[in-house]
């Protein structure tokens, strides 16, 4: 017998001795209120700004211009995006202003860690209750773009807003099959490990800009 069989054997023997009756968890009422749809946008924005993120409202026609201005103000020189429609539109529009490209091959770690100022991603959904962006990674959306560059920019169409994680999952929001890496992002990276003092930019992004596209 190997370890696996011995561990499983012991667990099964215990269950045989003391059968454990358990109720189906989802039948237990939580009494935890979901925010009303009318509150979603405000709550989402409030939660994200509480967590030190910048939420910029924009529209389909002007989001690139709005972002371009913000990037210029922040003096961003190198930006990389996933190969999404929005990313390609961004690259097409800003190519003259800065070093801006979509990632199409394996990223060099040195470039990633030392050269790229900002990563651009598109969110699959927004969760109002916690101020959260759901980011689905894959060939079109590298995992590291929302992690390594100091500035993390995420575009979210307001129509993708949901009450919260629980509602999103139970209402079938999860991609099928699951991507190799699904992410919930709710602010720039942070730590309070020194004397409970909050500091942003622990290991990942120091800043998070959320472009909330209100008419999409």
């Amino acid at each position, binding site marked *: 017998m*190997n*370890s696996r069989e*011995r*561990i*499983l054997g*012991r*667990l*099964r023997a*215990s*269950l045989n*001795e003391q059968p*454990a009756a*358990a109720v189906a*968890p*989802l039948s237990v*009422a*939580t009494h*935890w*209120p979901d925010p009303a749809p009318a509150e979603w946008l405000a709550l989402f924005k409030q939660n994200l700004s509480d*967590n030190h993120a910048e939420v910029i409202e924009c529209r389909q026609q002007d989001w690139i211009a709005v972002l371009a201005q913000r990037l210029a103000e922040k003096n961003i020189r190198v930006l990389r995006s996933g190969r999404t429609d929005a990313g390609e539109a961004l690259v097409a529009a800003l190519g003259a202003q800065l070093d801006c490209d979509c990632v199409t091959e*394996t990223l060099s770690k*040195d470039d990633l*860690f030392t050269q790229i100022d900002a990563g651009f991603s598109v969110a699959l959904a927004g969760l109002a*209750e*916690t*101020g959260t962006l759901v980011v689905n990674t*894959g*060939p079109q959306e*590298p*995992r*590291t773009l929302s*992690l*390594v560059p100091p500035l993390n920019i995420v575009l979210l169409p307001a129509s993708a807003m949901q009450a*919260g*994680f*629980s509602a999103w*999952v139970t209402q079938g929001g*999860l991609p099928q*099959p699951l*991507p*190799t*890496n699904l*992410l*919930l*992002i*709710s*602010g720039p*990276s*942070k*730590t*309070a*490990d*020194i*004397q*409970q003092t909050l*500091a942003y*930019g*622990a*290991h*990942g992004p120091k800043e998070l800009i959320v472009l909330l596209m209100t008419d999409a």
Partner: protein
Amino acid sequence: MTAEMIELRQALDEEQQEFAAMQQQHFKVRAKMALENEALRHSFRGASDFLMAKRRAVFPDETALSGLRDRGEAIRQYSLSKLPELLETLEKNLTANGIQVHWAETAEEACAVIHGILASNNARTVVKGKSMVTEEIELNHYLQEKGIECLESDMGEYLVQLAGETPSHIIMPAIHKNKEQVANLMHGRAQTSDGSDVPYTDDVDQMIGNARAILRDKFRHADAGISGVNMAVANTGTLCLVENEGNGRMTTTVPKLHIAVTGIEKVVEDFSHVPELLTLLTRSATGQKISTYFNMISGPKKNDEHDGPEQVHLVLVDNGRSRIFAHPVLKPTLQCIRCGACMNHCPVYARIGGHAYGSTYPGPIGQVVTPQIGGLEQYGDMVSACSLNGACGEACPVRIPLPDLIRELRAEANSPQFVNAADPAAAAVQGRGSKRTLGESLIWKGWALGHRLPALYRLMTWGMTRSRRLFASAAAKKLLSPWTDSRSTPLPATQSLHELAKAAGVASDVSRPQGEQ
């Protein structure tokens, strides 16, 4: 090197030696040392007050909190009720997703398995995300002896490792250090990527910035990342990690090899069980509605993907858990989601801090887990360090009856039936009965006799009230010294309530047929 730097390094070395010496002491000695350390008392009191207030603020509604805890408890109990089946499902789905699954019965086996994976990939440098189970199995020490550099990357864990200490809290590992201590530690021991000393600063943002620069360099070059797991979803074959700093994502994303390590109890059946556990975890732990990142890993990098680890492994660790699973009363120990709320709310922890427990897991959950993993012989003393005030049980997001479990472990420790720790087949806690002493058991036998026979009891209280002056004597004071060292000596009354009630004509018996009017 400047004279100041030489002095600082000596001081840090001395602190580390003091820490090592303290860890060799008996529980009571460690507790006393902690109680006498003003800076430490201040750190823990402040942290406890801060974290309790934060938690309260994100649970404004009692009914909603109660309902959420009901759900959390139900999810954990349901998962445990199907544990062997869920582990097999998890293994099947992880494997289908390309994640390799390993099983380890003991801490040694887990370390050997992890080392084997690293060795077969020629990995010499490892960055670690925060993981209590790897602390439990003492992985760093094991890998160090095999010549593998293992760097902690959670800010708190990094500081603790830099100091040569162990975490004092499961969520905030360096909670015992104030910022001045961290400033000295960083300046005296941390080195930048080019090998120079980190300039002194006690500004928290700058200290974090310095550590960030050092650790980002390590992430970039590490051969492998080792992380823990907060929840493993059986139906989808997904490993979930909760974090704020981004080091967890770095660890699991940047190196080409990722090894996740988890206790076998962390599995849940379905993804629909995840959101409530997540919200309970972050709200209970640090008073956050959600953590900055929730990282759900369902496979290594695919061919058409541009980043991510090429290999992902999961090591399932038993290390005593299947034994806990067999105990009829102590089984809820395994419901734990490692939020740390019990220690944040524990008045004993607030005063002695995490290191006094001398174990990986401190506070109430530590008092319950540690003796069951390490045996009562070695860790049985900590179960008496609880006033059974119930604050931990009240805070526990998955309703583990912690005070009941601590009491049960006292019964196990004092059981008249001794169980050899070396007997792995026994379902009892290792070292059952090992704390039973002749003296103490005789005291309780005498106590039981005196309270079982009402006439004898009345005689005793009569004697006590009539000899009350003896209580004020020096001899009595000495006998009662654990009490009287810091309190006045309690004086019995002149007559007992039994006597007063009898004298006042209060009936001793129900004489008439009873019933409500």
